[in-house]
């Protein structure tokens, strides 16, 4: 039983990291329609920024995460501005955006590889990693932190989307970009804001990942894909669906490690993905019209 609880808690922690990533992916995918795989590169850059700030400049953790957030926001905005926007203006299709995004990711990952090497770089944060024992379940301060941040980000994003004018513009653009343009919304600017917000959301996840597993150049891609799985399984355009599935996937993944060799954890997730899209192509909480938009 204690084992079960431990794996459940590990699942919730991993689910928080996945949730933050999924919110970022979901936002860009729903609003801009871009399969922004370079997000995995933004994730990696954030992780290395946190590492550099702590290891070279001895900044406190919170400040390092803030610096990483600024770097991520700027990078997200730049990728959209330099790479996607000229193509969007030319009316580029899905394929074109995806392939250039893949190119961007390849450049970022390998630049980091040249700059920092491919071995994981660990960060010393002292007391935060000290483990605490709650009725046999072991957690550390960092893990409690990431769970809280994930919940806060989810609520914050929800408020931002439904209660602020900028957020409503994003929803309008997601639902119908042509109509949004007609009623005077600057769609390209909305895309820009979306990229900034989506890049900020993933920073805490990247920081946690770097603290726990070390920063690696190719570290973002697998989490990114799992978050794409969470978004598609949860239903595109449904934040709640995305969050529920992200936690469910991470918990399933951790419970599998309990019973099966850990090599197969990702295989099981992708297998579930294939099964679910046979049973329910719109995702758990998705609506049908989201599928027709291509």
């Amino acid at each position, binding site marked *: 039983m204690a084992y079960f609880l431990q794996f459940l808690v590990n699942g919730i922690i991993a689910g928080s990291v996945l949730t933050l990533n999924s919110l970022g992916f979901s936002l860009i*995918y729903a609003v801009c329609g871009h*399969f922004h795989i370079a997000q995995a590169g933004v994730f990696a850059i954030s992780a290395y920024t946190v590492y550099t700030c702590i290891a070279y400049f001895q900044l406190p953790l919170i400040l390092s995460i803030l610096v990483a957030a600024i770097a991520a926001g700027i990078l997200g905005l730049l990728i959209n501005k330099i*790479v996607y926007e*000229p*193509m969007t203006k030319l009316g*580029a299709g*899905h*394929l*074109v955006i*995806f*392939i*250039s995004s*893949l*190119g*961007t*990711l*390849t*450049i970022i*990952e*390998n*630049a980091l*590889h*040249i700059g920092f090497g491919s071995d994981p770089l660990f960060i010393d944060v002292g007391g935060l990693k000290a483990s605490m024992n709650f009725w046999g379940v072991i957690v550390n301060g960092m893990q409690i932190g990431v769970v809280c941040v994930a919940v806060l980000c989810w609520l914050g994003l929800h408020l931002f989307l439904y209660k602020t004018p900028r957020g409503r513009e994003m929803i309008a653009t997601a639902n119908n970009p042509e109509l949004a343009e007609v009623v005077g919304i600057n769609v390209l600017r909305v895309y820009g804001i979306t990229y900034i917000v989506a890049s900020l959301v993933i920073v805490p996840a990247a920081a946690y990942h770097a603290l726990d597993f070390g920063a690696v150049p190719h570290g973002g*891609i*697998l989490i990114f*894909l799992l978050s*794409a*799985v969470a978004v*598609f399984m949860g239903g595109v355009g449904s934040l709640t669906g995305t969050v529920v599935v992200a936690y469910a996937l991470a918990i399933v993944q951790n419970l599998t490690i309990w019973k099966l*060799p850990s*090599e*197969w954890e*990702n*295989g099981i*997730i*992708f297998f579930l*993905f*294939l*099964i679910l*899209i*046979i049973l329910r*192509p719109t995702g758990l909480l998705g609506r049908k019209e989201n*599928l027709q938009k*291509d």
Partner: protein
Amino acid sequence: MEYLLSFAVLAGIYSILALSLNILVGEIGIISVAQGAIFGIGAYTSALLVLHLHLPFLLALAAGIVVTGLFSAVVAIPSLRVKGDYFIVAAFGVQFVIHDIFLNLVDVTRGAGGIRHIPRASVFGLKFDSNFSYLCLTLFFVLLVISVYWRIKVTPVGRLLRAIRSDEVAVQALGKNVYKSKVMTTVASGSLAAIAGSLYAHYLTYIDPSVFTIHDSIFILAMIIVGGMGSITGSIMGAVILLGLPEILRFLAIPDAIAGPGRQIVYGILLILFMRFRTKGLFGKSF
């Protein structure tokens, strides 16, 4: 001379891969980032069958084609029911899971150490030992794959595929079965990649998981983007150019630690530049 011959053999093998991926991306417009893994399934299937069951090369190659074809069908049937992005995710999943299997199913694949001492290909007692004879064998299969591609391209099937690429809904409205065409094309693409896998395994006589990673899949994708989507000449030229590029860079005396990732950066830049300024690639028609 031997250096040139072995380069030509590899260029032939990668041309087959590029052609196989181009049927999918260039003709019907489905993006796959799993071609490296599919290539690997063909290579492992063929190598293991020859080593353990002592099957003749051609039979092992045929088995490789069947296995990858079936495997492609298993992935394509669920993921192609919904829109293209689901297939992208499924393909990434395939790429990672298959690589995990090559690496971790040690009893069968021998893990990171790879499979050694794979016999060179031989057909009806004729052994392809020298580079030159292997080049002839490879060229035979390149021509075979080109003729299959050509067949698909010029027949009504090809017109249907290209129509699906430009407007899926319109094709569906005409009463054509879009879903079935997509699944069939994916299976065909996977089967052709298996030929490359088998040729590769029986040429180098050694395979390990490091050749079938996501980076190799992106490398193959870059070949057809540079060469030209939907173009036979483009697929072959793309393979030759991208394989030749590192050979040229080798003369620039760049340290090894930088050369590998540096090459990847060049591929990344090429992907973006071609998408921005010349989507049809060097030899493709308008895309």
